[in-house]
């Protein structure tokens, strides 16, 4: 089911469509460096299409900098920067993620089944980050083109200075959502504690409903797009306004 959705929406070729060769790394007996060096230097030649990681136990930088179409499944809780800088890979964390999950992702898909700590998807340029639980503060800060779908709620300062990309929040948002937004668009279903400077609600268009539906389907969340509101930049901060007296 999941693979069909991924194929249908163009987040890269699902590695599972090819003949599956599995390699397992137990981080109780292997180092993260061994895992990542395999992913960076040996994966493509090895013909492995799926990498299973056990006992992650909160280690940092698991599956960072991957640049190949491979499925990676992490069974447990990951620490800082899991799947950071990801390109092409489909990474699933069957647990929680520490700060900076999928930060600076370029393409591919990262799914966190539990909750994600601060700054999830920070500066991500492409691909899709799905967080099934809550995301903490600063989710999608400085987003540069990726999509983020959060099944739960997001903390304060989420999408701060987000430049491009889309963020779908199925739960609530904390303070200052979308502060100093550029051209990223936020869709939120629940309560917003407060909007940040220059963020505003806008009418949902047919294209917005389609976008939300596509991202909800990809994530596997069963909500109606009709329940979501659109937040985008009022573009009042793009140019210096001497008359504003620093009141934004």
């Amino acid at each position, binding site marked *: 089911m999941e693979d069909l959705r991924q194929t249908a929406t163009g987040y890269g070729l699902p590695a599972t469509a090819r003949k599956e060769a599995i390699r397992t790394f137990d981080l109780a007996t292997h180092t993260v460096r061994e895992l990542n060096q395999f992913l960076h230097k040996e994966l493509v030649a090895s013909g492995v299409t799926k990498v299973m990681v056990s006992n992650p136990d909160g280690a940092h930088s698991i599956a960072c900098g991957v640049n190949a179409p491979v499925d990676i499944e992490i069974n447990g809780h990951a620490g800082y920067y899991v799947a950071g800088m990801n390109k092409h890979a489909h990474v699933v964390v069957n647990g929680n993620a520490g700060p900076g999950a999928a930060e600076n992702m370029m393409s591919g898909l990262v799914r966190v089944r539990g909750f994600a700590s601060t700054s999830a998807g920070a500066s991500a340029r492409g691909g899709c980050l799905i967080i099934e639980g809550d995301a*903490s503060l600063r989710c999608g800060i400085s987003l540069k083109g990726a999509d983020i779908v959060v099944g739960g709620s997001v903390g304060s300062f989420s999408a701060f200075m987000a430049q491009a990309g889309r963020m779908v929040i199925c739960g609530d948002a904390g303070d200052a959502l979308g502060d100093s937004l550029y051209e990223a668009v936020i869709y939120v279903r629940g309560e917003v504690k407060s909007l940040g400077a220059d963020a505003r609600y806008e009418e949902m268009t047919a294209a917005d409903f389609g976008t939300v539906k596509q991202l909800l389907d990809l994530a596997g969340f069963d909500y109606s797009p009709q329940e979501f509101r659109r937040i985008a930049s009022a573009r009042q901060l793009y140019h210096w306004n001497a008359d504003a007296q620093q009141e934004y």
Partner: protein
Amino acid sequence: MCGIVGLLLKNPALRPHLGELMVPMLIGMTERGPDSAGLAVFSQPVGDSLFKISVYAGESKVDWNAFIDALRAAFATAQFQIRAIANHAVLTTSAAPDAIEEWIEKYRPALTVLSAGRSIDLYKDTGTPGEIAARYEFAKLQGTHLVGHTRMATESAVTPAHAHPFTAGHDFCLVHNGSLSNPYMLRRKLEPFGITFETDNDTEAACRYFEWRLREGDDLPAAVRRGFAELDGFYTFLMGTDDQLALVRDAFACKPAIVAETDDYVAVSSEFRSLAHLPGVRTAKLFEPKPQEVYSWRI
């Protein structure tokens, strides 16, 4: 950067193993704090009219037997017992802690009093968490709850006195990950009340501020909430008293924290990797404390 750990054992059967459970937590935070480490361990209070005082000797060689003989001569009617390991000792006495502290300051200036109370023992020193745990045999510690810290100094010197936990008053300690921008404002507020400071460290200011609020009648959550307006900066604070742990993060929650709770224990750490070895952690209730929310647990 620093690491914070805390453990409160709800299940009395685990209390003889408090140290064993905690040492991997502390060592797990070595990368966050390789220059110093310390912990405060709380156990069943000593009998009525007795107090415990943790004393640190630094580099100086101390004959602890001579030390206790001198105390017995100075306080003829008081009882004294001492348990020493390396350059650290816990003194149990029927004398008033303030009088003992004054005497130590006057006659044994090379010694530092780290804590006083009826439940608390405190250890802190420079070195890696692993070295310090071995030096003071942390794995053998027993008790109900503890507060630990690994330090990577960013704003004041690396010395045993600047290591955490900090204490103020009796049976109260605090550890901190973060940095405060107004510690001198706090000091100027507290010094007119006769509160004195031992270091120039920002965390000490927070510790003495909260202890002052507790003496003024606030309970711990109320004191911490009052701190939201008075303390400026970044912080995750973990505090210990004779019967509880309290945890709080500032509004921006830049400094990480995670809590694992089971029927047997509550464990707090900066990162999950320090909790991964705990029994039952895979089925524990795991959560990150929300900003400006006070979490507290009683034994």
